[in-house]
């Protein structure tokens, strides 16, 4: 079966024409995933029973001459920090190695209802903390485009699954770039919706004011189809927004594209820069107005991110105490000792580093200098974006490189700060809660790179439509 060239549309056509059954296709995906994850390490578990049961249901429907719709029969993978009932959800951590999800995340419920076939749970940086998927307690994930390099992170397993054609789509979570950066490194589409567009119920929390679930896919259309299934307000997540608030552009005329000069300065790989600039020129040829803009506060985005995210992490991860679930240190002198030992052994280096950083910036005497300061600078960054989209410039989309370089070598970034800097172009949209997608934009030294399209808050549909326009240029 030609899984490589399969899209949702072509899959549905093939199923109707009975070129293959949904069960056959699902078996092929599962077999390929099981075989190749031995090398890539992108799956923590395949959900075979669930997948084949769902596939049989789809075959039954089609044999009753019902045409497949939405995600019916579409094989998808789910990041292991998102709950699929009765399957393990480790979040890449030892502390949750035996945790079995008691219920479905809202997004998983929606996937199942739409007829999607969940084929497995994907590897990730522990608790989604990292930019390379080297931080998982279950081993490093490799990039399918070059096995010596990282797939990006933290949703590296999901990105690799789509790039290696184990499935047509996948769910990831993005807190500071964890969908967009791996999408860029693996040469696929990865979309982070506006904060509040997708329910976080059943997503193992990292930094709650930033976390957002979103889709990976091989093209813009499929990305949009998956997003349309998982979006929407949810009584189980009070931060979701009623989608009636969305302000879509009715037509794509006289649109203005902003190019923020701060994203093209020092640190950007020269060849990546040339590729992105040539893509922007092609967009200009389509008649879009290109305007250089400035977002001066962007320089501070990563510093703000590495205060706010760890602060929220230190609070959210206090739940891993060895009492309610997960790894337990066993016999201890007293309760305090039990907590300290459980967390020392159950949590990895990067997670402990961020918990301690967060504890420090929230501790007495430092809270004003760090946490409160960061919340104020976050307000400035959000306002700077607002001014660009609704001020006199009236910019419709902002275009930037997704990452400063293509995928780096496994083991290359040993210094935590150097790793953090790989999110320098993705963290700003997260802080401002804006929709942003990474779309493939050619290759540098045979490695894929991504163009990031950022839209105004809740203008998610337009961002996806523009991604499609860009996709068709090439």
């Amino acid at each position: 079966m030609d899984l490589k060239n399969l899209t949702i549309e072509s899959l549905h056509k093939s199923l109707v024409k009975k070129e293959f059954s949904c069960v056959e296709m699902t078996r092929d995906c599962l077999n390929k995933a099981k075989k190749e994850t031995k090398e890539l390490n992108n799956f923590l578990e395949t959900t075979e029973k669930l997948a084949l049961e769902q596939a049989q249901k789809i075959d039954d429907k089609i044999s009753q001459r019902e045409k497949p719709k939405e995600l019916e029969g579409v094989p998808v993978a789910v990041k292991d920090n998102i709950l699929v009932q009765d399957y393990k959800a480790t979040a890449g951590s030892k502390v949750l190695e035996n945790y079995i999800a008691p219920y479905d995340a809202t997004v998983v419920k929606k996937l199942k209802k739409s007829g999607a076939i969940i084929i497995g749970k994907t590897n990730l940086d522990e608790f989604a903390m990292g930019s390379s998927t080297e931080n998982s307690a279950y081993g490093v994930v490799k990039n399918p485009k070059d096995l010596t390099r990282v797939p990006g992170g933290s949703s590296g397993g999901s990105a690799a699954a789509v790039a290696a054609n184990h499935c047509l789509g996948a769910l990831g979570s993005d807190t500071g770039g964890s969908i967009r950066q791996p999408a860029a490194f693996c040469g696929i589409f990865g979309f982070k919706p506006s904060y509040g567009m997708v329910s976080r119920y059943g997503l193992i929390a990292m930094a709650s004011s930033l976390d957002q679930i979103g889709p990976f896919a091989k093209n813009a259309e499929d990305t949009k189809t998956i997003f349309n299934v998982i979006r929407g307000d949810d009584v189980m997540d009070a931060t979701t927004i009623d989608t009636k608030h969305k302000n879509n552009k009715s037509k794509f005329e006289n649109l203005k594209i902003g190019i923020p000069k701060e994203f093209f300065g020092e640190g950007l790989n020269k060849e990546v820069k040339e590729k992105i600039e040539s893509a922007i020129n092609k967009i200009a040829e389509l008649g879009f107005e290109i305007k250089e803009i400035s977002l001066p506060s962007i320089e501070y985005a990563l510093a703000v991110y590495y205060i706010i995210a760890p602060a929220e992490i230190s609070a959210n991860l206090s739940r891993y105490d060895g009492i309610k679930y997960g790894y337990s240190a066993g016999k201890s002198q007293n309760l305090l000792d039990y907590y300290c030992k459980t967390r020392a052994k159950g949590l990895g280096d990067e997670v402990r580093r961020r918990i301690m950083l967060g504890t420090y910036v929230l501790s007495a005497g430092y809270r004003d200098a760090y946490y409160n300061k960061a919340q104020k600078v976050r307000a400035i960054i959000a306002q700077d974006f607002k001014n660009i989209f609704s001020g006199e410039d009236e910019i419709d989309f902002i275009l930037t490189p997704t990452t400063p370089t293509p995928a780096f070598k496994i083991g290359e970034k040993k210094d935590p700060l150097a790793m953090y800097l790989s999110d320098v172009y993705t963290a700003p949209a997260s802080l401002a809660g804006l929709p942003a997608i990474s779309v493939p934009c050619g290759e540098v030294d045979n490695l894929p790179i991504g163009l990031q399209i950022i839209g105004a808050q809740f203008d998610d549909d337009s961002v996806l439509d523009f991604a499609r326009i860009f996709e068709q240029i090439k």
Partner: protein
Amino acid sequence: MISKEQVEHIAKLARIELTEKEKEKFAIELSSILDYIDKLNKVDTSKVKAISQITDLKNIFREDEVRVKEKDTRDKILKNAPSKKGDYFKVPKILE
């Protein structure tokens, strides 16, 4: 610069036991991250109000009522506990 003693204090607040070697490692790493973060001091925020979220939502209230869940959700939740007695989580002794 964060000292080894400060790392010890933070680790205690965060309920994480560290080895001597880890204390030294984290002192260096956390210091380098905090040096980077210090660039925020250059931003004038005297007229800015801090925000803790980005969508301007106000309080979201709901009725205080039990939502009907699958019957076995409670059992599944309890099953994940490392130690339990009946329908309760078992906690190490707090008072001697």
